[in-house]
């Protein structure tokens, strides 16, 4: 990532997939236009990058693809001027990409341990990268159990539905899906959705509630948590009850970012910059920082 850290590299949109029923979440699979760039672009799940469109704007997004997947995947919610312009882009269009920025999840600490993933809403992007990375044949033996608790407002809002269905039948991980409202809505192939019995069911309930039903030995595990502030506030006490100490819980934070290299000042939490010292923070470190996020 030498040269000018603000310089975007051209990438082509190979595939656009609409991820949710509300159609305001789309995944973009990107390929570098220039040869050799992909090899130089090494990253670990948890890091993020800036997508940009000339003359329109730039914004940071978590990298949703695993390190050795050919295409880089980003899932973008249509919120503002830039994301609306990006959502109007067809396959084949060229946009700008710069990065990778920030710290990844604590891969060394996770070696040999169980991994509990707790995610809510569309922040599941970088955690998808973690799951795909762990499920790779060469990597799977390095980790113990892989337990994933992932919830959204309705089944229609769950991201990466085909992969979720595949993971439901994959013995290498235990996937627990939930939604605030399940009955009466479209089930998107998660038929067995009765009140939580079937393995492929989407249970009805909030992520922190569903998390209570998970059995895991905390001292052998690491928890990766990512979701809206409201979910985090109710998840931490549950993790504590399950025996997780703050040093074992890692969070990926969202902040306003404009540079990605700790200069523009927008993403500061006390003396730390989320883009340079994060976005993944150990919960124990966050407790020492001011309540400014």
């Amino acid at each position: 990532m030498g040269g000018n850290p603000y310089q975007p590299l051209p990438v082509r949109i190979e595939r656009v997939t609409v991820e949710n029923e509300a159609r305001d979440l789309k995944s973009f699979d990107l390929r570098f236009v220039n040869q050799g760039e992909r090899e130089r672009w090494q990253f670990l799940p948890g890091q993020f990058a800036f997508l940009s469109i000339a003359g329109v704007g730039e914004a940071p997004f978590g990298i949703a693809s695993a390190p050795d997947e050919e295409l880089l995947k980003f899932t973008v919610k249509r919120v503002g001027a830039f994301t609306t312009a990006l959502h109007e882009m067809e396959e084949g269009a060229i946009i700008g990409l710069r990065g990778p920025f920030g710290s990844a999840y604590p891969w060394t600490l996770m070696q040999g341990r169980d991994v509990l993933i707790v995610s809510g809403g569309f922040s599941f992007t970088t955690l998808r990268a973690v799951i795909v990375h762990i499920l790779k044949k060469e990597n799977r033996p390095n980790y113990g159990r892989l337990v994933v608790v992932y919830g959204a407002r309705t089944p229609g809002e769950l991201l990466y539905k085909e992969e979720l269905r595949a993971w439901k039948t994959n013995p290498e991980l235990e996937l627990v899906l939930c939604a605030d409202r399940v009955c009466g809505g479209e089930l998107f192939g998660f038929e067995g959705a009765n009140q939580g019995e079937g393995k492929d069911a989407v249970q009805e309930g909030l992520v922190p509630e569903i998390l209570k039903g998970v059995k895991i030995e905390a001292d052998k595990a690491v928890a990766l948590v990512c979701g809206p502030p409201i979910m985090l506030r109710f998840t931490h006490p549950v993790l504590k009850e399950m025996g997780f100490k703050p040093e074992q819980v890692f969070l990926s934070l969202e902040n306003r970012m404009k540079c990605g290299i700790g200069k523009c000042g927008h993403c500061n939490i006390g003396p730390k910059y989320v883009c340079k010292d994060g976005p993944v923070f150990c919960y124990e470190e966050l407790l020492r920082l001011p309540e400014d996020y």
Partner: protein
Amino acid sequence: MKVFLKNEDLKKLLARFVQEGRLFAPVRRCGYSGWDRVSSVDEVVLSREQAILQGEEVNTREPAKIFVFPRSETLFEFEGEEAVETGEIPELVVFGLRPCDGRAMAFLERFFVGNGPEDPRVRQRREKVTLIGVACNSPADSCFCTAVGGGPHENKGLDVLLREVAGGFLGEAVTSKGEELLTGFPEATAQQDAEAEKLKANAEATLALKIDLNRLKAALDNGFASPIWERLTLECVNCGACTFLCPTCHCFDVFDETVRGRKRRSRIWDSCQFTLYSQHASGHNPRLNPAARYRNRVMDKFKYTVDMLGEVSCVGCGRCVRVCPAGIDIRVAVAEILKEAAQDGR
């Protein structure tokens, strides 16, 4: 290496830069002085002490940071999707900045270049500008550089420091660029040196304020939730005047625009006092409350940069005190924080 330049020597030296169209100096404009390219050397006010006697402000209203971190600069112009760096960075000579701005330039260089990933534009601009500072012999009532570790005759961050004495200036080279500039001038006599030291002592005598920076850091370390911030910031209207004119404020926004088909991405000053500064895409804004924003500014100057870089990032130039439309004085805020911390035994 201390030399002595008579007024005409300095004028001749500056005239050379004026011919090359490279000299920037303080120019008087509607009630205060600002930086401007000098078209003829007579425009340059050599003796700032005389100017101050005639009511001129001790320092320029806009800080010298504009020469390394300008108000706005185009980062890229886009040809198709290719981002092309633009704007050839010119070689400039800046005459007349004060030691507090010099110290701020050192901080900005350390923050942008010497601290993690490097900002190439700030590095190039600093390399291509020559800073000729002029020491302060009569600081203003709003100045407090000595309270934060600086001084009216300090040369940190400058290439050359000039100290105004009878009949001319005592020149002190700080960097190799400075030495190049001052070669060929006569050695300063001990008597001139003594006069300069006396002027320095007099100037320091007028700067009485003392701030115990360690105790302030301790007070701020656990003063985050203190009610003092609400009380201090009722008057604050959250404009960007104090941050934009602060020589060490480094926050910027990246702004994309299309002007008649030409696409460009620019970097512009931003302020943590603005409402949208920390607004997330989700709409959540950790510092929606104006008091939280003023707290962030004081914390950044006296705590966060100490945690990050081990030094306070306020240089005591007093601009934020002079320009605040609500009359807020950061020295008063600091004093109240220390007083409250003492009462709570923090």
